[in-house]
């Protein structure tokens, strides 16, 4: 996803000299060509995330389209007030690119685990919040962010996650994409678990269970129409995210159901209220929280069991 981001940004920077890339001293090897080719549109501000955001705001006030990059945790939490006041309150076209979803920095420990970013960014007025599920969504969302006249947050991952979409898929802010159809249950996924979710749907299909899979690459604005439709047309909903359950995507879906007086079974998959203990690989942690194809398939069965009582 990170490669897809810089490839798309390079195309935009070539066309428009007002496209800037700011980094908080991260992006080793990935940004080498960008800084060589666009020295006037690139700045490494050093290990100073508060200043990163304030400078981005100042540049945006001068008509620049700024993409500010750092590791998700450092980007969203250290300068939270700068994001709130300088970017969101002033409603400036700055896109925050957080690299790392949940356990991307697996053996680095909890300081590097992106657990809260979706929840934190979602509560900020004016902020558009995105969590692409594959490189195709990344590229489309980077283009959308470039055209957008306000702040955007995007959580991307470091590795080569499988491409799910084909080239004809239309990705626009606030519109979920249906990647599999079915009326037994609906699996709503936000972010990196997209591929696992699709695998889960395929496993279930072989067992005669047809699931609808919706990719919510945009968490805010949330595609409420698709949520309501899925609730109406299927037996229950499963939300999947690599974020704490508190305040993230599943919470947002639950709010839509409650606000619209929709009573439908809902299973929220994500990370519970804890700092994950121990050391291990990305898969090691994801398995702990059932964020795997089999884990997701299990949640679907749980929903169907509930509804068959």
């Amino acid at each position: 996803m990170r490669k897809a981001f810089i490839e798309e940004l390079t195309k935009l920077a070539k066309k428009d000299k007002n496209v800037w890339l700011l980094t908080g001293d991260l992006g080793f090897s990935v940004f080498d060509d960008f800084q060589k080719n666009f020295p006037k549109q690139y700045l490494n501000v050093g290990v100073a995330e508060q200043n990163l955001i304030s400078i981005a705001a100042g540049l945006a006030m001068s008509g620049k389209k700024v993409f500010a990059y750092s590791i998700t945790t450092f980007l969203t939490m250290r300068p939270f007030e700068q994001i709130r006041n300088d970017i969101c309150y002033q409603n400036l076209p700055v896109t925050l690119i957080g690299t790392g979803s949940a356990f991307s920095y697996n053996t680095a420990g909890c300081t590097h685990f992106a657990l809260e970013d979706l929840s934190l960014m979602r509560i900020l007025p004016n902020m558009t919040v995105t969590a692409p599920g594959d490189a195709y969504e990344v590229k489309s969302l980077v283009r959308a962010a470039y055209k957008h006249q306000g702040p955007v947050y995007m959580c991307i991952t470091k590795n080569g996650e499988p491409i799910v979409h084909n080239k004809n898929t239309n990705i626009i802010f606030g519109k979920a994409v249906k990647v599999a159809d079915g009326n037994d249950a609906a699996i709503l996924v936000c972010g990196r678990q997209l591929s696992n979710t699709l695998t889960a749907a395929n496993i279930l299909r072989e067992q005669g269970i047809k699931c609808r899979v919706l990719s919510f690459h945009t968490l805010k604005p949330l595609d409420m129409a698709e949520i309501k439709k899925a609730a109406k047309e299927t037996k229950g909903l499963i939300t999947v995210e690599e974020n704490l359950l508190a305040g993230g995507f599943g919470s947002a879906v639950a709010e839509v159901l409650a606000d619209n007086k929709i009573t439908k079974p809902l299973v929220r998959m994500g990370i519970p209220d804890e700092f994950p203990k121990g050391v291990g690989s990305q898969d090691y942690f994801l398995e702990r929280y059932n964020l795997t194809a089999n884990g997701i398939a299990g949640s679907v069965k749980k929903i169907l069991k509930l509804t068959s009582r």
Partner: protein
Amino acid sequence: MTIKNYMKKLSHKLQDDLKRQALNIRRDIITISAKAGSTHIGSLLSTVDILTALYFDILRIDPKKPNNSNRDRFILSKGHGCLGLYCTLANRGFISKKILNEYCKDGSTLPIHPVRGSVPGIEATTGSLGHGLGMGLGLALARKRDNESGRVFVLLSDGECDEGSTWEAVMLAGHLKTDNLIAIVDYNKIQCYGHVKDILDLEPFTDKWRANGWEAIEVNGHKFEELIPALRSIPSQVGKPTVIIAHTARGKGVPSMENKLEWYYYNIKSENLDKILAELI
């Protein structure tokens, strides 16, 4: 570079004009804050001569074209001093004097802290300390890389220099040789809960800026014969951002308020307004 080098003689006429403008602004601050029952008065009064020097002599701005792209930009990083900026903008013709009466009123566009675009002349939203210099650096960098002429002035409080984010911007501005960025510190020596030297001593203050690649000039922030030559000399060294350390006094202009911490928190009771206005010097 010493202060002496900047002590050029200003014309009496200019000094008289500036003093008159400063007195008008102080009178407006006292009157409007009394009407609104608002606080921060001591901290507002310490900035008046700096704002006067900027808006009536230094800044390349046009009240008739407040969004002119080549204009100098001014950011009030010490956002709690915004009544002083509103009154300055009103006296400089950016906004009507009438609108000042709406300060802090229900449904008004003039809160205590500045909101970008709320009225002409407000360039940045501030209020939480330590944000203004970084935003100013972003504005200055955009101008430098686009070869545009506008300069960026940022007014900070001394208490604000406790914030780590301020020093992130100081370090980077020096490193990038952003000589179109000018910081002015309203060094009135009193912060929220006491004297700067007792709470978190900033000294040796100018040395800290210089160590980070800035040109630092110390002036009496209430004497136009020091403020104006210093501000006119910018950039006094090509390749260096400039800081003006303006030694000021809280409550300047109203003797009974001068250097009193409590006038950050007190408001002016209507029955005392005439007495305080009569004190104005």
